């Protein structure tokens, strides 16, 4: 979830950390002082080894590195830095007659080189250039990550859509043969009930088998029911909905189960208004799905917290549990139809799939974050204003449609 991932932007606030590596202390120390006056945090190292151990302890942004050093040479240190700390930029210092060394260094990945004696302004300029390059690359990387994430999400949504079409089609087709099987079974049951035990020596066995068929039909029927219910929902009816009341009612509904498991369900609703135009029936179904899921994931003494968060743009409902959590490899699949970790016959694997569909229909979205052993948070987001629609990803158009029909933004009271 974004709320948890985003860290405050610190980069501009933090001073740049420099590491000066040179074997001549009479050159190093004055340079350090002068750079310090320019606002840098400066560390120093007298040789390659010192540089390595320092960097292992504390990361630096830029290394100013002398090429000619006894022991470990500058180029060797450079290679090591590029390998271990690819983000750190290196500016090389070369003797005045050794430009070739500098060029070799650039080939090996140094940002640039400067010839000794070094002019301070020149060095500072180079350092700033290196920092800019670093920033650009970081931005590029973030952009690429964002793009990859978006693409992944799109693939996931498309996958869900096609899986949905496919599975509802199958459900329809299965209903007909299922009806036949059911008729046959009912008929057999009827004949069995009419037959005297004495005439039918293995009647008990037959009854048992028919019973199993009946249970299996029931199971298959539950699946097709849920699946087809997802495609053609009853018409969405928007009305003024008090989420606080809705949540309290829903919790009341599952209270008994929670008490049996010795699980506490906490409502964190005091600070919010909680009123929104939406489909109360649909939201109730979403809440029931999420809370029963949470109940299945927790043990005694665990807590489930249901809370509302409101901003000008959005209303969020969070269902948070301190239960077993969802392993990363499952997290991508939980919204897919038929994905379940419950034993066969216990769960249909359709609850979250249906929930996902409902949130789409409401022009909102559902997100999950989870850590194994710590717990899981499901967040459903509903739009409050037209502006919020652009935050709804694929459901943007549905969202705009809905807010248009309820005449613009959500009311505040």
């Amino acid at each position, binding site marked *: 979830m974004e709320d948890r991932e985003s860290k405050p932007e610190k980069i501009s606030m933090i001073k740049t950390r420099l590491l000066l590596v040179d074997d001549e202390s009479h050159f190093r120390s004055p340079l350090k002082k002068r750079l310090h006056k320019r606002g840098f945090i400066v560390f120093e190292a007298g040789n390659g080894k010192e540089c390595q151990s320092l960097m292992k302890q504390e990361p630096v942004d830029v290394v100013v590195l002398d090429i000619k050093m006894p022991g470990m040479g500058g180029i060797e240190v450079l290679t090591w830095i590029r390998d271990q700390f690819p983000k750190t930029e290196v500016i090389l210092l070369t003797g005045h007659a050794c430009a070739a060394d500098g060029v070799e260094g650039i080939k090996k990945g140094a940002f640039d080189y400067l010839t000794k004696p070094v002019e301070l302004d020149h060095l500072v300029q180079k350092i700033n250039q290196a920092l800019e390059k670093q920033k650009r690359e970081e931005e590029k990387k973030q952009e690429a990550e964002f793009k990859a994430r978006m693409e992944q999400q799109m693939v996931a949504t498309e996958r869900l859509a096609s899986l949905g079409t496919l599975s509802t089609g199958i459900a329809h087709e299965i209903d007909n043969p299922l009806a036949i099987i059911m*008729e046959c079974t009912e008929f057999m049951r009827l004949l069995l009930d009419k037959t005297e035990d004495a005439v039918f020596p293995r009647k008990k066995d037959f009854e048992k088998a028919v019973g199993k068929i009946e249970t299996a039909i029931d199971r298959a029927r539950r699946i*097709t*029911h849920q699946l087809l219910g997802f495609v053609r929902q009853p018409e969405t009816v928007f009305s003024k909905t008090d989420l606080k009341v809705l949540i309290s009612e829903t919790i009341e509904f599952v209270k008994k189960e929670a008490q049996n498991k010795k699980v506490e369900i906490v409502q964190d609703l005091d600070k919010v208004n909680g009123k929104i135009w939406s489909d109360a029936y649909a939201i109730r179904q979403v809440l029931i799905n999420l809370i029963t899921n949470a109940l299945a994931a927790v043990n005694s003494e665990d807590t489930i917290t249901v809370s509302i968060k409101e901003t000008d743009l959005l209303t969020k409902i969070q269902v948070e549990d301190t239960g077993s959590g969802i392993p990363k490899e499952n997290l991508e699949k939980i919204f897919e139809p038929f994905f379940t970790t419950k034993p066969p016959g216990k769960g249909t694997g359709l609850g979250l799939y249906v929930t996902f569909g409902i949130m789409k229909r409401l022009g909102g979205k559902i997100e999950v974050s989870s850590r194994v052993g710590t717990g899981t948070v499901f967040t459903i987001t509903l739009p409050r204003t037209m502006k919020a629609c652009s935050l709804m990803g694929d459901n943007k158009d549905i969202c705009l449609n809905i807010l248009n029909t309820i005449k613009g933004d959500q009311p505040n009271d």
Partner: protein
Amino acid sequence: MIKIPTKVLIVDDEKDFVEMFSLRLQETGEKVFTAYGGKECLDTLAVEDIDVVVLDIKMPEMDGIEVLREIKKRHPIVEVILLTGHGAIETAVTGMKLGAYDYLLKPADAREMAQKLEGARKRKEEQEERIRKAEERTLLRRTGGI
């Protein structure tokens, strides 16, 4: 008590379903007729005195709703129970507005089906009873009560 058989007409294009369903209903003492399409259904209704039609909504050629309209036009007293797929509850509602007694989701539960058949037959009987009484009254009036 002797059970009065309900005369049921099953209409569905799934032959196996129709066959098993009719076997079962016969076993429970109903009198069963079958039809595999809308036209056949209307033909049967024209010659047989049917109480309840169990009608599948999704059929090729003439669809269930169309058949229902025709049944209600030609035999308004005959009760109709609709069989629908899960996705098609709206169609069932349309059907009930057109005069169907009730609907059942396919695959339908035997107990539910038995209940609805019973209810449909009762409604038809009561209606017939009311018609009979009304007829009596008109006869009385015409003869002046002598």
